[in-house]
């Protein structure tokens, strides 16, 4: 085959490959969201993190603002230490609260941030003090049964 035709076809092939790379990166992947790259990390301690995993989303008002960087057990306080990387363009007040939430009934778990009213903003390495752990279904059912049983006891007590 002639050299020029060969080069043309290989050029078309490489261009097609490059276009599909761009499509994968921007249309399929999330390179645009959080692509700025610069983040700051904050730490939070939770009683129970449920099924929260690394790379789980961190949302505020439902918008993605960062990702969970690491989950560790804190052997001093006997709770879970969660490190979050938050996009530098979003600043949160020092008294922001963090809670482990679930998207949908069976969906993945994420961290929800509710902004507080402090003048000072969270910096790299700060800790979020106000936290609420995950709702564990078994505990909820247990509490419900316990309260039902107590109601039943109270009713009996009233009849006597």
């Amino acid at each position, binding site marked *: 085959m002639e050299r020029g035709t060969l080069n043309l076809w290989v050029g078309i092939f490489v261009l097609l490959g490059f276009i599909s790379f761009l499509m994968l990166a921007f249309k399929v*992947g999330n390179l645009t969201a959080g692509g700025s790259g610069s983040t700051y990390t904050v730490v939070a301690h939770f009683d129970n993190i449920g099924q929260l995993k690394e790379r789980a989303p961190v949302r505020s008002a439902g918008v993605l603002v960062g990702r969970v960087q690491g989950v560790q057990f804190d052997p001093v306080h006997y709770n879970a230490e969660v490190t979050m990387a938050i996009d530098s363009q979003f600043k949160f007040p020092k008294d922001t609260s963090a809670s482990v939430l679930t998207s949908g009934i069976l969906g993945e778990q994420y961290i929800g941030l509710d902004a507080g009213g402090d003048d000072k903003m969270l910096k790299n390495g700060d800790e979020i003090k106000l936290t609420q752990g995950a709702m564990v279904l078994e505990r909820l059912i247990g509490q419900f049964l316990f309260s039902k049983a107590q109601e039943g006891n109270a009713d009996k007590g009233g009849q006597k």
Partner: protein
Amino acid sequence: MPLERTLRGVRLIGDRTLRIVERVGATVAFLGLILAQSGPSFRRFGLVIREIFYAGVQSLIIILVSGLFVGMVLGLQGHETLQNYGSEQSVGVLVALSLVRELGPVVSALLFASRAGSAITAEIGLMKATEQLSAMEMMAVSPIARVVAPRFWGGVFSMPLLAMLFSAMGIIGGFLVAVVIIGVDDGAFWSQMQAAVDFRHDIVNGIIKSVVFGVAVSAIATFEGYEAPPTAEGVSGATTRTVVSSSLAILALDLVMTAFMLKGWN
């Protein structure tokens, strides 16, 4: 008597195993030889471009069409099952993640091995059978540098491009079936996909996989051709072995890489 028979059986197993290990070792040694002699193929890049044409461009049709079909089937099957949980919109996530992480690199590498790998083996094997390689050696031209290395690099460059084209085509196929034909919401399809697919952990890892498969398939194909017995049966046997061993290598390497990538060692 029964002891002797058992011993013979065990010896046979040992012999087979050693042969397989020898073959793997020889392929890796051959890969080292190619790498050591690939200087000329970069100085005369036209040689590699020619091989990218034969390995990559000529595999385009099969890759694009199979990608489209695989994506469409994923869309249909995914929609069928996800419907039971009332989350049809997640079909985009299912299609994109399975293509980008697994099916894109793996299926395109399997197709590449049977479409281009077998052709490379047959070509080099026939060159050897017709003593073209010996003739080159007589003229003090290294056949590895002149014939093998350009084909190897052509395969290594083509493979990731083909894998990305396969994934992109598959996602378009999934989109056609799920959104255009079945009627899943367009916005939810793409937005859930974008929320779930991570550039670094899904797309880049998929590309890394396809590069590794490209190296494996090209090394096996050139090795089998170069080591083929110079007869008609020898070349046909080598072509078959290329397809069989590269398919096995692709699937085994995929398991190992997936295990590491999901654990997140990078």
